[in-house]
């Protein structure tokens, strides 16, 4: 594994057996269906997708909060999927999470100071005095008043709670922070504060982010590279600006075309591509390409043959038989 890759997932599958029967057979609900990706040191990899696409399940599989059904996850060059819980511990310290719901993710019965100190206590890092000093320092780092650390979560606003969640995630000096919809519960002005904070912290502590969100604007703003998920698969992955300007996958193209935009310039807006229907049941996947029933570009091959996830242009991966915008992107070599 080259040094600049912090996390590598190879063909990760997570499926749940379901009691439902589809076409007479007990169905297998495949939430993550063969995802391969690399997260490079110091970058922000954004994962964007609609609800139910498997982005949160993928994140949980990557940090081993959920056992994978098959596939490999290497972190710092170490294969994690075969490790025991005890063996995982030292690696877990390096991977911390920030959750979506700032109300549900903080224990209401513990003071916020304790909440931020707990990871250090559990991992037996430092004396009480050292931990205390570190908690104060973390509070200042995330823009909270250290005098508030004896208060309880309910005394804080949503944005402040998310700052507490971020402080907790930083307490063990992790190298990877996995943020699962960290700002989707916040109002737009507070969301901007938290996003700016996360950007500043990344610079200050050389953090690597895996940033999961459904909001395409948020993901473009924070990410260096972006992966687009649909029905448990990454259908496109590439450098953020290029992916947003010249999407390769028809799903990405349609998704970007319907984001409501502010009419603040005279630039013509993208032509809206409204894809009909709903996301299929992951227990009853379409044959061939998962997106073909809703795809405006689908042809016969799309119903019969699953497109491979290939590097079509340097750094630009896509799983599609009929990628868009190919001619306007510089070819390989």
């Amino acid at each position, binding site marked *: 594994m080259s040094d600049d890759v912090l996390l590598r997932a190879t063909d990760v599958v997570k499926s749940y057996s379901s009691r439902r029967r589809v076409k007479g057979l007990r169905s297998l609900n495949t939430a993550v269906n063969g995802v391969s990706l690399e997260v490079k040191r110091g970058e922000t990899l954004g994962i964007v997708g609609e609800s139910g696409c498997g982005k949160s399940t993928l994140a949980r599989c990557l940090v081993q909060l959920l056992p994978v059904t098959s596939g490999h996850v290497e972190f710092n060059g170490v294969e994690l999927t075969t490790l025991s819980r005890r063996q995982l511990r030292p690696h877990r310290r390096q991977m911390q999470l920030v959750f979506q719901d700032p109300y549900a993710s903080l224990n209401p019965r513990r003071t916020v100071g304790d909440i931020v100190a707990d990871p250090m206590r559990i991992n037996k890092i430092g004396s009480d005095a050292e931990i205390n000093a570190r908690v104060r320092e973390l509070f200042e780092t995330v823009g909270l008043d250290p005098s508030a650390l004896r208060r309880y979560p309910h005394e804080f606003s949503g944005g*402040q709670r998310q700052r507490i969640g971020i402080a907790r995630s930083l307490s063990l000096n992790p190298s990877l922070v996995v943020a699962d919809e960290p700002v989707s519960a916040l109002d*737009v002005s507070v969301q901007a504060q938290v996003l700016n904070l996360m950007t500043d912290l990344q610079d200050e502590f050389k953090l690597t982010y895996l940033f999961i969100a459904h909001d395409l604007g948020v993901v473009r703003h924070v990410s260096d590279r972006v992966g687009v998920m649909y029905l448990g698969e990454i259908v496109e992955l590439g450098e953020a600006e290029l992916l947003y300007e010249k999407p390769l996958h028809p799903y990405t193209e349609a998704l970007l075309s*319907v984001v409501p935009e502010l009419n603040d310039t005279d630039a013509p807006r993208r032509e809206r591509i409204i894809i009909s229907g709903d996301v299929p049941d992951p227990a009853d996947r379409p044959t061939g390409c998962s997106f073909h029933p809703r795809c405006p570009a689908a042809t016969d091959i799309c119903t019969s043959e699953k497109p491979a996830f290939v590097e079509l242009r340097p750094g630009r991966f896509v799983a599609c038989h009929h990628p868009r915008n190919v001619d306007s992107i510089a070819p390989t070599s």
Partner: protein
Amino acid sequence: MSREDPPTNAVLSVRDLSVSFATRQGVVRAVDGLSFDVGAKEVLGIVGESGSGKSVAMYSMLGLVRDANVSISGSVRFEGREILGLSDTEMQSMRGGEVGMIFQDPMTALTPVYTVGWQIVEQLRAHSDMTKKAAYERATELLAEVGIPDPKSRVNHYPHEFSGGMRQRVVIAMALSCNPKLLIADEPTTALDVTTQAQILDLMGRLQATHGSSIVIITHDMGVIAEIAHRVVVMYAGRPAEIGPELDVVRSARHPYTWGLLGAVPRADIKTRRLVTIPGNAVSPLEVPTGCAFAPRCQYRMEICAQRPPLRGADDHLDACWLSDEQRLVIRSSATVRGES
């Protein structure tokens, strides 16, 4: 979206609407001096963050705020008729009839124990003399009109058998069932994914054009406003901060709060560098300053901001801010308000 019809005479006319709640901690002024008109076939957007009073304003107008400690004042005229203080029965015949409603969460707007057809029929029969059979036929037609595939069989399905987007279509079908003159939509797409949101906004735009209803859409998303609204009211702490045509407000916003709100949005269509933030948190509704409500968070605060600014401006673009036009020009040319630094 259909935008060709400019507002003519007002369908809904709100003047100085105030809603306050007496609580143990003190009086909460949820809405404070809100005035606006909605023209025929016009789409008016009301935008604000949580707690800005945008939903309470609409609910109180429709008699849906049933709280012993509420006091509502001002005037709300629907087609020239005062509706504040109507009796429950009068209000009931108006709601769902001449005024349709779409709520954020379609699952709470539909009852899970009856089929969607039953629910539409109930509403149709409450507001007209239709026979059961005719009402069922009309319900099927309505489901077809909002783009539900196979409406003949879907009319007999229960809400849980529909996806979120399809449920919201059912709610829209119900809201439109009695050909309302006014449709009030409270965050109709907030619970939906972006592709589904696009389907629903597109549907609302088309239906608005064919039915000719006026729409009041309440949202926290300036992008949704830009997609569908002709005019916009920006609310902060229960008060209108700025009112004007959508393009004017987005392109030449006048109120510092609107500047912050626009600059804070991470964009999918262009590269944003650093987001503009509004310092601090939304003001507690118990402690709204007597002067400008936004002053404690405003970086352009002046002495005069201790007094409440009137809503004023030129033509139909109004704002409640003490800054002079010259001051605004200087501030806007510094470009920091749009995150272009």
